[in-house]
């Protein structure tokens, strides 16, 4: 086996993959939220739809998005592989389970991750797939722009009039928050970035991120649902 492959398949290498892909996804979520908050603008979707047009047509963004799909897949496959390997390494379970002061969500990462994946399938099937591969979206044009863009805004707004979907989004974001509550600081520890001076700040930032980002996302379906 080449030294590099051996490195990536070692227990530390596998975690390095989780950490780097996880941090990439963490960065992506900030950009994704910043863009999507335009769904709250009261302009019949002009800013959001032109932004969506830009995001689906700009070659740089398009290339990055292939990286994103790849990293989600890599994070998922590696995460599930680790969970299976780790369960095997434990072998049997204790009759009495420990109540030690440990971060319990760390052991539930694979379950939370799988739920996130299920959410992503619903989420992407609803918007990304319809935007990219179907003609079900209406075309709109705005003053001063002599070009028609797909009206993703109305599609989103319509989707969020369905209470079931809104509940799915609320649950999805709670699950994401739980994944990040442990995951954010864990990614730094995996990289070996544990320092008496900075680790408390990383833990604080991680918890703030784990609350604020999912909260930001969840406001969007709630706002659309309740403004009807």
């Amino acid at each position, binding site marked *: 086996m080449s030294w590099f492959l051996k490195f990536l398949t*070692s*227990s530390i290498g596998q975690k390095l993959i989780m950490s780097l892909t996880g941090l990439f996804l963490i960065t992506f979520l900030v950009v994704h939220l910043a863009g999507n908050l335009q769904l709250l603008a009261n302009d019949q979707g002009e800013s959001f739809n032109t932004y969506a047009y830009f995001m689906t047509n700009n070659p740089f963004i398009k290339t990055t998005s292939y990286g994103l799909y790849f990293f989600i897949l890599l994070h998922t496959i590696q995460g599930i592989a680790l969970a299976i390997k780790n369960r095997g390494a*434990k072998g049997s379970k204790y*009759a009495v*389970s420990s109540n030690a002061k440990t971060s319990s969500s760390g052991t539930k990462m694979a379950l939370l991750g799988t739920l996130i994946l299920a959410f992503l399938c619903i989420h992407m099937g609803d918007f990304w797939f319809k935007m990219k591969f179907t003609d079900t979206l209406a075309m709109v044009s705005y003053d001063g722009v002599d070009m028609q863009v797909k009206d993703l805004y109305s599609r989103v707004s319509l989707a969020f009039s369905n209470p079931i979907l809104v509940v799915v989004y609320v649950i999805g974001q709670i699950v994401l928050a739980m994944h990040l509550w442990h995951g954010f600081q864990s990614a730094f520890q995996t990289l070996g970035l544990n320092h008496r001076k900075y680790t408390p700040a990383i833990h604080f930032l991680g918890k703030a991120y784990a609350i604020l980002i999912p909260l930001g996302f969840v406001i969007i379906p709630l706002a659309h649902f309740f403004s009807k």
Partner: protein
Amino acid sequence: MKLTLKVWRQNGANEPGRFETHQVEADEHMSFLEMMDVLNEGLLAEKKTPIAFEHDCREGICGSCNMVINGRPHGPNSGTTTCQLHMRYFKDGETITIEPWRAKSFPIIKDLVVDRTSFDRIIQAGGYISVNTGQAQDGNSIAIEKDLAGQAFDAATCIGCGACVAACPNGSAMLFTAAKIAHLGLLPQGEVEHKTRVQSMVNQMDEEGFGACSNTAACEADCPKEISITNIAMMNRAYMGSVLGSQK
């Protein structure tokens, strides 16, 4: 004090195991191991097989008195081994569940005794420094920063009991391996072989079938020597640095 013990009995790695319930009359001044001795004397008097458990120093330094007591390796108190645990921490009439370390790489030999030679092999892979014998150099001629010596010493308090593996939901030996790597690598004598040592010890750890680290810090919470997971971060950094940055 009267206690009910639910103890794991198993004749070997591939034999089926089961819990056996016993009553024992103990004194609150006894250590946990003394309470186990009383139980075993009772079993012997009844011509039954005593419960196999490991012990040696009975003062918290050998790392052999390994049992999971009510779900916690070395029992409910932090920073103590089972031999240092006293019965006054339990209530009269309490039921105590006692299990062996559970991890694939620690197969059960009998009852509460597990085979921890996987740890020995990790040490053999690089947990030493190759100094030639001869005149010992004057200690004061090697300058070591006080903080560094402290860190190395903290890591060196690891007694290799395996509570970290027992506590870890992944059966990972990262805390043990990291403690050994830190205690040697932080000091000038051990630093010489640090890069190669990190690689060989981590490789051996993986080969033994221990799990990966999910950073749950369960190991740190149950380590009788309270060794910090900071050592694991240090090991990760050193391993990546060594594989990616050194010629080997």
